[in-house]
C-alpha cells in the first residue's frame, strides 16, 4: 500500500501539471478569443489570430490529456465530475468547436468573416466561463452516493461558481493580452497593454474574492488557511502572489516585451497552488480523496512509464514548435 500512496500522489501532481499546462497554454489563446472584438478588423485581428494559429491545436491537446489523464488515473473522479457538471462540459465542448473551426473558416470565407470572428469570440468566452465554473463546482463540493453523482442538474450553478467563472475569464484575458504584448508591435501592442492592465486588475480582484469566499465556504477550508500549523505552508502563497502581481503591473507599465506574459503565468501558478492546497488531499470534495479515486497500481505504473518517456519529448518538440514561430507576428521571418 505504501508504494501505491506514493504513486497516487505522483499522479495527482502529473494531472495538476497537465491542468496547469492546459490553463496557461490554451488560456492565452482563449483569452485572445475573448479580447478579439476589441481589435480592429483587418491586419490587427489577422495578426492576433496568426500569433496563435500554429500552436492552438497543441495547446488544446493538454485538455485532452487533462480529461484522458483524469479518466485513466482517477476514473472515479472522472465518472463523478462529468455528470455533476454536465451542462458546463457540453457548453465548453460546443464553445471549443466554434472557436476551433473559426481559425480555418474565417480565411476560407471572407464573406462571412465577421460571423466566424464572432463565433471565435463567443466560443472562447463560453469555453473559458464554463471551465471556471467547473473549477468552482469541484471546489464547492459534489454530492456523491455509492460511487455516483447524486446531486441535481443545477448544483453547479451558484454565486461561487459564477465568481470562479469570471475569475478564469479575466485570467485568460490577462494571459491573452500579455501574449499579444509580446507578439505584436505598434498601435496593436499599445492596445494590448491597455487590455492587460484592465484584465490584470480584474484578475487580482476576482482572485481575492475567490480566496475570501473559499475561507467562508466551509470550516475545513477556513481551518487550513487560518490556523497553525497549516498556515505556515499556506502563508507564502498569498505573499508571493502579491509580489508577482506588483511586478506584473510594473512590467506592463514599463512596456516590457515578454516579461508580463511570464509573470502572468507565475500568477496562475500561485493561484493554482493555492487552490490545490485548499482541496488537498481530495480530488472531489468533500468525500473523495485522491486515494479513493485512484486507478489500481498496475494502471498507474503502466502509464507512469509512458509519461516518463514521452513527456520530456513532448515538452521538447512543443518548445521547438514555439521556437520556430518566435518573434513578432509580421516580422520578416513570417513571409
Amino acid at each position, binding site marked *: 500500500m505504501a508504494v501505491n500512496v506514493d504513486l497516487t500522489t505522483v499522479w495527482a501532481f502529473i494531472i495538476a501539471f497537465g491542468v496547469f499546462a492546459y490553463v496557461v497554454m490554451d488560456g492565452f489563446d482563449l483569452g485572445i478569443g475573448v479580447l478579439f472584438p476589441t481589435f480592429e478588423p*483587418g*491586419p490587427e485581428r*489577422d495578426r492576433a*489570430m*496568426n500569433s496563435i494559429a*500554429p500552436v492552438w*491545436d*497543441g495547446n*488544446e491537446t493538454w*485538455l*485532452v*490529456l487533462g*480529461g*484522458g*489523464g483524469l*479518466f485513466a488515473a482517477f*476514473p*472515479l473522479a*472522472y*465518472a463523478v*465530475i*462529468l*455528470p455533476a457538471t*454536465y*451542462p458546463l462540459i*457540453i457548453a465548453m*465542448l*460546443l464553445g471549443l*468547436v466554434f472557436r*476551433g*473551426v473559426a*481559425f*480555418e*473558416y*474565417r480565411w*476560407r*470565407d*471572407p*464573406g462571412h*468573416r465577421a460571423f466566424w470572428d464572432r463565433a471565435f469570440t463567443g466560443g472562447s468566452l463560453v469555453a473559458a466561463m464554463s471551465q471556471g465554473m467547473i473549477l468552482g463546482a469541484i471546489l464547492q463540493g459534489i454530492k456523491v452516493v455509492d*460511487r*455516483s*453523482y*447524486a446531486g441535481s*442538474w443545477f448544483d453547479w450553478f451558484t454565486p461561487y461558481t459564477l465568481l470562479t467563472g469570471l475569475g478564469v475569464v479575466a485570467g485568460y484575458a490577462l494571459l491573452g493580452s500579455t501574449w499579444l504584448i509580446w507578439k505584436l508591435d505598434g498601435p496593436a501592442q499599445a492596445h494590448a497593454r491597455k487590455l492587460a492592465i484592465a484584465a490584470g486588475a480584474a484578475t487580482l480582484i476576482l482572485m481575492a474574492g475567490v480566496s475570501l469566499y473559499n475561507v467562508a465556504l466551509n470550516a475545513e477550508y477556513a481551518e487550513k488557511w487560518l490556523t497553525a500549523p497549516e498556515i505556515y505552508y499556506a502563508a507564502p502563497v498569498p505573499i508571493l502572489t502579491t509580489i508577482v502581481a506588483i511586478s506584473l503591473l510594473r512590467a506592463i507599465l514599463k512596456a516590457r516585451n515578454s516579461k508580463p506574459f511570464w509573470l502572468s503565468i507565475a500568477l496562475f501558478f500561485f493561484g493554482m497552488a493555492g487552490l490545490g492546497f485548499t482541496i488537498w488531499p481530495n480530488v472531489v470534495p468533500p468525500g473523495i480523496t485522491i486515494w479513493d479515486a485512484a*486507478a*489500481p497500481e*498496475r*494502471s498507474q505504473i*503502466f502509464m507512469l512509464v*509512458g509519461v516518463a518517456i*514521452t513527456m520530456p519529448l513532448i515538452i521538447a*518538440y512543443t518548445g521547438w*514548435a514555439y521556437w*520556430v*514561430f518566435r518573434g513578432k*507576428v509580421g516580422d520578416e*521571418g*513570417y*513571409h
Partner: protein
Amino acid sequence: MFEASDALLLARIQFAFTVSFHFIFPAFSIGLASYLAVLEGLWLKTGRQVYLDLFKYWLKIFAMAFAMGVVSGIVMSYQFGTNWSVFSDKAGPVIGPLMAYEVLTAFFLEAGFLGVMLFGMNKVGKKLHFFATLMVAGGTFVSAFWILSVNSWMQTPTGFEMGANGQFLPGESWFDIVFNPSFPYRLVHTVIAAYLTTAFVVGGVGAWHLLKDKTNQHARKMFSMAMWMAALVAPVQIFAGDMHGLNTLEHQPQKVMAMEGHYESHPDGAPFYLFGIPNDETQTLDYAVGIPKLSSLILKHDLNAPLAGLDTIPDDEQPPVFMVFWAFRIMVAIGVGMMLLGFWSLFARWRGTLYEWPLLHRAAIVMGPTGFVAVIAGWITTEVGRQPYTVYGLLRTAQSASPLDAPAVAASLLAFVLVYFAVFGAGVWYILKLMQKPPHKGEKGVKSTAKGPVRTAGITPGPSQNPNDPTALPQDHEEATDGR
C-alpha cells in the same frame, strides 16, 4: 414525460451521432496525412514541381479536415464521462491508460508538428519540414492504434481481473489487454479503410478536373495515384475484411448471425442472404433472397458446415438485426464497387485511355465519397452488432450509462445535432469549394506569399478582398493571380 429507458436510448443516440460525425474526419485525415507524406517525399526525391503543387493543394484541405477532427475529437474524450460514467468508472483502470497513451504518443505528436507542417516550410527547411509531415502522418496512425485497441478490448476483453468494487482491473500483462484477439484484425481493416476512403476522394477530385480538362497534369497525377490504390488495395481490404469476419465468428458469433440474418440454425450448410427484411419480433428474415450454402463456404470454407443461428441465443443477448444486416451489406457492396473500379482503371491504363475515358471518370466521381459511407456502415455493423453490451458479455449497455435525466441528455443531443450540422456542414462546404478549384502549377500552400501574415489556410489574401462582397470567393482572386 420521459422514462429511464429514454435517457439510455438518448445517450446511445448521442454517442452514435458524435462518434459517427467525428470519425469521418480522422478516416480522411489518416489517409490524407500519409498521402501528403508520400507527395512530399516524392517531391524531395524527384524534385518535380507537380508533387509540390499537389502537396500544397491537399494541405489546405487537410488543414480544414484536421481542425474539424480535433474539435469533434475533444468532444469524444468527454463523452465517456458525461454520458457513460458508470462504464468509465468500471472500465477506466483498463482502457483509461490506453487512451492516455493515445494522447501522449499520438495527439501531442500530431499537434506539435502540425503548426510546422502547415506554416513552417520556409522557416525550417525542406528536410525538417518533411520530418514534421512524417510525424503528423505517424501520429494519425499511432492514434488509430490506441483507440482501436480500446474499442477492440471492449469487443473482445482479455487480460483483466474483476475487482471487489466491480471495476475491471488490469491483469498481469498489458500486452494481453492491448493485443486482445480482435485488435490486429480491426486495426488492419480500419487503417486500410481510411487509406481507401482518402484514395477515392483524391480519385474523385482528380476525375472531376479531368472531365473539365483532360490535359491537366496535376489532375492526371492524382487520378493515377488514386486508381493504383483502388486496384491494389481494395482487393487487400476485402481479404482483410474476410479475416476480420472470421475472427468475429470466433469471438462474437451473435454479431455474425445478425450480419448474416441467420435467425435459424443451419445444420447442413447456411445460405448467404442477398436481401431480406429482418424482423426481431417474429425472429424471421422476411422476403429473403439467398444463395444456398454460400455463407457456410465463406465462414467455414465448407459448403455443408453447420452454422448456429440466433435461435441458440437468449432474446435478451441478441443484437438488433436489421441495422447490422443492412449496414454490413452496404459496406460490402461499396467494397466490391471499389475493387471493380480499380480493375476498370487497370483495363483503362492498359488501353492507354486512363485520362480520356469520361465514363470512368464519372464513375470515379460517384465513388468518390462512398468510402465514408462504407466506413460508417462498417462501424454500425460492429457497434450495433455487439449490443447489448459495452464490454462484451460482461457489462451491459443499460448498466453503463450516467445517472442523468432524459431531458438533460435530450437537450445536449439537440445542441450537438444543431451545432454539428451547422459547423461541420459549413466546413464540408468549404472543403468542396477548395476541391472545386483545379490544382495548378505554382500552387500556394497554407502560407500566404503575399504581404499578409501567415494564416492557417491562407491562400486567400483576406485583406485584399472586399469584405462587403460575399461573392468575392477565394478562387476568384486566385484565378486572377494565376495569370501573372
